């Protein structure tokens, strides 16, 4: 997926940065970037759940414009980190998977937002 690919490139180029004041500013601003939600798809899932009580698998799939498999993989990683919780049920005969953001997930998003803001301030104040 294009969005996913862009996120991976973003992540790689992030690691490729070496030396210079930008890196020093980044280190100063935020030493521990949460790689788990830095990835675009997972960041999108967490952001969408932050403004909803819960979202179904199909809602998230539509929102993120991705495939079942891709969404499952990323959602599972977030579940394993206990950032999101998953509830499976049946609506008639149709299985329904609902996701909601947990308290650690919300805190992780807040930390990530703080991190991004710190990066912006650190590089602007240089």
């Amino acid at each position, binding site marked *: 997926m294009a969005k996913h690919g862009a996120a991976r490139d973003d992540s790689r180029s992030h690691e490729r940065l070496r030396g210079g004041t930008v890196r020093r500013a*980044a280190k100063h601003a935020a030493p521990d970037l949460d790689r788990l939600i830095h990835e675009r798809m997972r960041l999108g899932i967490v952001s*969408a759940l932050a403004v*909803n009580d819960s*979202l179904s698998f199909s809602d998230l799939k539509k*929102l993120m414009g991705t495939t079942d498999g891709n969404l499952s993989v990323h959602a599972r990683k977030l579940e394993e980190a206990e950032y999101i919780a998953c509830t499976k049920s049946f609506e008639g005969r149709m299985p329904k998977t609902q996701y909601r953001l947990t308290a650690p997930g919300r805190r992780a998003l807040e930390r990530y937002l703080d991190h991004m803001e710190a990066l912006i301030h650190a590089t602007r104040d240089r």
Partner: protein
Amino acid sequence: MRMTSVRPLRPDPPQEPPALHLRAMDNLAFIRDTMEAAGSFTAVSGWGMVAIGVLAIIVAVAAGLQPTESAALNIWLATAVLSPAIMLWAMARKASAARMPLLSGPGRKFVLSFSPPMVVGALLTLVLYRAGLFEAIPGVWLILYGTAVVTGGAFSVKIVPVMGMCFMAAGAIALFSPPSWHAWILGAAFGGLHIAFGIAIARRHGG
């Protein structure tokens, strides 16, 4: 003789990766866009609506004590100026807490859709007031406020247009009810509906 195109011997130097702060800004924009697209965040402040509702109930009691309908309407008119200020303040606080600009995509659409019926309402109020048709004003206010909420709410969470429809229904009742009921209808709608829907929005949609 036709010449072939010439290729440079050395390719262009590789572009510098975007600065970290630009990527951080891009990430923040992505988060904001995703939240907006998820459609459940509403800049409309539930607690702001509760505050307006409480104010409306106090005003309804005060207006009910007035000897004439025009005196009662003057009190409501003063409230109509104060209420948007309360709501704007509450919306700005809510947007700030969610780290979203107040006039982001859906917020801007909300304002653009909400405003026209409100402007029409202000103009009609002036016309009806000058014509001495005081008894028509409460119904017109409620219907046009409801219309504004429905049209603005089309870009917001579902509960917002539902609230607008309730205001429109209250307006329709007010238009065809005796003037002695108007103070109660205004109080019940601007007070009761704002408080009830405000609590629901605050609980479900981030404050």
